[in-house]
């Protein structure tokens, strides 16, 4: 399958004539975005999830340049365990310094469902490893904004070279709305793909077991229930998965 990595981030001028955002929804191509301002256009249905998240952080950072020197994204509660992350080059060494155990602005933003601003890196005592590293990288402030992508927990972290000015959060709204839609849809799509793949595998296994039962029913003139019992008992006796017992029988014409 050809992967479409086209990302039209475009430019974004903070607070200047940002048009009213219309409700964005996937169009026929599965692309999210609107035409009111330079949208985040990510074909999440044709891209690996990791590539989508990379596109989100790159796009978000482009819109905040030159104020942002690095952008990170953390995604929790995806439904398959663990967490997902993405970061632009300027944030690659900073993002690992915030985590579920060590904490960090993004995790606090997710937990509190509100933005977290670290405007004074020297004065912030909770995440000293992160703030020290940020300061060495020339960062003046950190801004973490939760995405609206429930039940997923996610947040963007912007590493800023200047102090966030008044009104910045409001100006960021379109960026956050875009990122929220893309992340929510991309994770949901990936989850559905995973479930579909698992179900396909389950149905193939079921079919194989059905074939094996058929072999036993024909050869031993037994019922379907009894054929299943034979396979089941062999599975237990040999500590093999039922599917493997069935496959052996179908391929070799005898039980393992």
């Amino acid at each position, binding site marked *: 399958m050809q992967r479409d990595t086209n990302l039209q981030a475009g430019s974004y001028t903070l607070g200047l004539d940002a048009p009213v955002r219309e409700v964005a929804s996937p169009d026929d191509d599965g692309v999210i975005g609107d035409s009111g301002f330079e949208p985040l256009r990510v074909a999440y249905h044709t891209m690996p999830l990791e590539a989508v998240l990379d596109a989100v952080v790159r796009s978000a950072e482009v819109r905040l340049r030159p104020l942002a020197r690095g952008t990170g994204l953390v995604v929790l509660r995806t439904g398959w365990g663990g967490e997902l992350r993405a970061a632009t080059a300027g944030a690659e060494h900073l993002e690992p310094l915030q985590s579920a155990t060590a904490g960090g602005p993004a995790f606090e933003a997710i937990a509190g469902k509100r933005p977290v601003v670290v405007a004074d890196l020297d004065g912030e005592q909770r995440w000293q490893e992160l703030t020290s590293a940020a300061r060495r990288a020339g960062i003046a402030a950190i801004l973490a904004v939760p995405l609206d992508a429930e039940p997923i927990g996610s947040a963007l972290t912007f590493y800023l070279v200047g102090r966030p000015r008044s009104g910045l959060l409001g100006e960021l709204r379109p960026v956050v709305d875009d990122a929220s839609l893309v992340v929510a849809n991309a994770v949901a799509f990936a989850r559905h793909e995973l*479930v579909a793949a698992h179900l396909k595998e389950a149905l193939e*296994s*079921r079919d194989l*077991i059905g074939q094996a039962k058929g072999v036993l029913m024909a050869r031993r003139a037994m019922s379907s229930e009894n054929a299943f019992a034979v396979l089941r008992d062999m599975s237990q006796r040999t500590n093999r*998965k*039922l599917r493997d017992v069935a496959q052996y029988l179908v391929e070799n014409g005898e039980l393992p």
Partner: protein
Amino acid sequence: MSTPQLQALMRETLGGAMQAAGLGADELWRGYVAVGGSELPGVVDDLLTGRQAIEPDQYDFLAQAINDHAVSLGNRGAVPYFHQLCGA
């Protein structure tokens, strides 16, 4: 063993084995379908929580799914089948 006692024993056996194997409801349902189970996820949930009685064949499908999961992790499938559970 009375029917309510047997139902409780089946639920406890399956629930305990699921917990021990770290097997979630979604994964259990996929494994259950893979070995021949045909009930929907909500029905399986009802079976496990006691909102619906577990028939022996459904119990065996669920036991097999848990055992297959254990085997895939390199462990021994230790959940007894229905006839072993009730000593039949």
